[in-house]
């Protein structure tokens, strides 16, 4: 075999670590016996016998998967696979699947092993690569067990203590105290005929025996908390957390349907389990007594968001968690305002619009909100609500949710209306179909009530939404106009691999994930959502509802939902990267920062949006275009 002397091969290899560290002679040696293969998209490479060697991707993208199909790594141009096959006979049985058509160099196994032994730096690089993959492998396997996103919705059965320390009501306090000390627990379950009767905790022993000079011979029945608060084993961690914090208890017996004790959940169990801080933040928010201290607590807000993102939480879940935190923040601010200003003179509802309503907030989302009043206020009452709104909106601003640049906030008298006032506004927008009305529509039609001081529990808002949908369904011209405006912006999809990028300004050559991507999907979902019988406010919920009501095909809808997830994930990542670097959130993305694989995904994502736009055009614009 002669040494390979192809300039294009050398030119490529010498830029790729660790080959770039080899001398010309070594490079020629390792290139001896190299063959080049073309792998079709979707094809699985079998790394056996002679093929169980290192491969280098010249152009393309591949995934490394476990035998069960779990994703270990995604690699593209200039990256190697088959490392573990050479170094350890591929004990994990990893597979390589081409994600796009790939041109791949396959090294000669014997030459490669020779080089690993001969050149230390070269060998170290591949050992490192292998370690790296193993780490990703273990991470992908542990992720299969419990992803952080699932933690709040884990059944308590998964984290409760099953070894129960029990007593009967007839025992003495002394004997159970000894048993508790021995078992090193702070509580004991009192059980009779298999059924849970009560619970005794360290605190009970302290307050009900020691503090009052009680006897150690007292019967358990007299000191226990009878009929304690319990949960069933399939309740969620989140429910347990809420219940314990509401009832101010630290021990929660878990019982089955026959009221038999099957486990014990303590605050410490929850704390161990609880790696996410949103609940902690919500708890803190509810304990603060002033706007200043709230603002201090909310300094953790960006860190929280970044944590959620780096723990690989699904984009849709990040949005929901953030919305829950901002809802709670909003409620706490309203409570503080009520404390300061005195009770409200009438029932009112605090409304949120836009991203908070849709529950897809991200870093740097601004506030869109308003007030809905029971009736027309007097001048004095009007002043009261002006003060309240100012307090809440400024408070939100101080806590990190930016003031709305378009002044769509409750602090603007324009957006404090009676139920009738809101209905008239919606009706006007729907009838006029003017551009400004459409702009309003895109914000206000995503609407949710976060606070209701009356007893209606947001019924007034539901009525408002019903009236709005009725009006829309009667007015097909409006829907057509809305459709046309939803189709004005096209996804930035160029030919082949090129993106049509912002051609000027600060963000030259960058992609605006929000306005060129997510907003388009939100618009489409709103369009379908408004055509549904049942109103949903979230983008994914709307698409699912549209499937249920058969307005959209399942395939199209699933594609669109995937696209939304993908773009949202990219946006969150771009934002958190940008935030960590500059302290500002930006949803702009430079496609150069993406791997070829990600670029390919993004291209597919945009073409999906474009397809659904066509579908929507067919559905809503027939006879109007």
């Amino acid at each position: 075999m002669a040494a390979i002397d192809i300039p294009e091969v050398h030119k490529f290899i010498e830029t790729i670590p660790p080959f770039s560290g080899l001398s010309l002679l070594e490079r020629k040696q390792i290139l001896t016996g190299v063959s080049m293969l073309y792998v079709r998209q979707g094809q699985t490479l079998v790394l056996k016998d002679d093929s169980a060697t290192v491969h280098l991707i010249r152009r393309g993208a591949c995934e490394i998967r476990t035998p069960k199909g779990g994703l270990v790594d995604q690699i593209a141009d200039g990256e190697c696979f088959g490392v573990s096959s050479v170094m350890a006979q591929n004990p994990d049985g990893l597979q390589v699947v081409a994600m796009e058509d790939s041109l791949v160099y396959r090294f000669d196994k014997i030459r490669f092993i020779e080089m690993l032994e001969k050149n230390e730096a070269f060998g170290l690089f591949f050992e490192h690569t292998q370690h790296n993959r193993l780490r990703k492998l273990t991470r992908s396997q542990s992720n299969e067990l419990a992803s952080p996103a699932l933690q709040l919705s884990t059944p308590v059965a998964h984290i409760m203590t099953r070894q129960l320390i029990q007593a009967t009501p007839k025992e003495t306090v002394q004997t159970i105290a000894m048993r508790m000390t021995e078992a090193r627990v702070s509580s004991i379950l009192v059980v009779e005929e298999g059924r849970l009767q009560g619970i005794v905790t360290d605190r009970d022993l302290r307050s009900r025996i020691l503090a009052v000079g009680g006897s150690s011979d007292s019967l358990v029945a007299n000191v226990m908390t009878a009929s304690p608060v319990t949960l069933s084993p399939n309740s969620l961690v989140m429910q347990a957390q809420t219940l314990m914090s509401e009832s101010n208890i630290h021990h929660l017996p878990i019982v089955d349907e026959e009221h038999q004790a099957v486990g014990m959940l303590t605050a410490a169990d929850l704390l161990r389990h609880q790696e996410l801080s949103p609940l902690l933040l919500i708890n803190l928010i509810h304990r603060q007594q002033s706007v200043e201290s709230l603002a201090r607590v909310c300094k953790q807000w960006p860190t929280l968001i970044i944590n959620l993102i780096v723990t690989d939480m699904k984009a849709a879940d990040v949005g929901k968690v953030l919305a829950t935190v901002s809802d709670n923040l909003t409620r706490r601010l309203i409570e503080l305002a009520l404390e300061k200003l005195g009770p409200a003179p009438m029932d009112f509802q605090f409304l949120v619009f836009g991203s908070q309503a849709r529950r897809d907030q991200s870093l740097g989302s601004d506030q869109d909100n308003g007030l809905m009043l029971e009736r027309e206020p007097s001048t004095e009452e009007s002043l009261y609500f002006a003060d309240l709104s100012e307090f809440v909106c400024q408070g939100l601003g101080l806590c990190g949710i930016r003031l709305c640049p378009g002044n769509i906030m409750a602090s603007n008298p324009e957006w404090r209306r009676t139920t009738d006032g809101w209905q008239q506004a919606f009706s006007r927008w729907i009838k006029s179909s003017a551009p400004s009305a459409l702009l309003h529509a895109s914000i206000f039609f995503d609407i949710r009530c976060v606070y209701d001081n009356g007893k209606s529990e947001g019924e007034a808002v539901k009525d408002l939404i019903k009236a709005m949908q009725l009006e829309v369904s009667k007015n097909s011209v409006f829907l057509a106009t809305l459709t046309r405006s939803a189709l004005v912006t096209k996804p930035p999809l160029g030919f082949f691999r090129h993106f049509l990028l912002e051609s000027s300004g600060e963000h030259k050559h960058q992609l605006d994930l929000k306005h060129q991507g997510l907003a388009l999907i939100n618009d489409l979902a709103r369009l379908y959502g408004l055509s549904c019988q049942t109103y949903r406010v979230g983008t994914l919920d709307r698409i699912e509802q549209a499937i249920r009501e058969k307005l959209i095909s399942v395939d199209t809808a699933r594609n669109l939902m995937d696209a939304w997830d993908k773009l949202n994930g990219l946006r969150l990542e771009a934002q958190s990267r940008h935030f960590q670097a500059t302290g500002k959130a930006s949803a702009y993305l430079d496609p150069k920062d993406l791997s070829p694989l990600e670029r390919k995904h993004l291209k597919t994502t945009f073409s999906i949006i474009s397809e659904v736009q066509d579908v929507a055009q067919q559905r809503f614009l027939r006879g109007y275009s």
Partner: protein
Amino acid sequence: MLSRFIHKLKAWYLARQSVKRRWSEWDYLVLDIETSGLNAKQDHIVSVGWVCIQNGVIELDTARHIVLDNAQIGDNVGIHMITDSDVQQHGKRQESVLRYLRHLLRNRVLVVHHAPMELGFLKQSWLEHALPTFSLSWLDTLAIERSKANRAQQPIQDGGFRLDACRERYGLPEYQGHDALTDALATAELLLAQIAYQGRDCRLYDLNQMGGGRTRLVPRS
């Protein structure tokens, strides 16, 4: 008489069988020829580059780049970057290179991009050097690409069948150099891409239908 018949029958049977064989069961030699001009009668070969495909993969070890000793460089140095000193240092006699090629092509299918040009020059050299008669099978990646476009009824614009343009459609990397060897490798990769798009069980027979044939190279009689 009978033995000739049996011989013919056997040849016919082999040909029938070979139609069924997958493309990767054959060996290929992908060739590119650099010439001093476009006219095979007036111009001559400056250099040749080739690489072989075996078992469905490009064996980079087989790559060769040979500059011919009778090359007259003149004004074309800018195109293929071969200088007079290259010719003097590395120049090989055209006849020996052609004999070597003929040897390699005995059990391989020739692959070129734009067959009329390359075959024209080969035919002319056979005439000039009075080499023994030689039949070869060939594939033309340009013709294959044209058949594909016709089949899909996707008209391809002027220049769209140039090697680089074809490669771009398959997302193959852009190569800077344009010497005979780089172009031979580029053509080989293009062929693999074209085959991949035809599906796993693509046969040489199918490729031949799209853009291939047999040609006899004969000496001047």
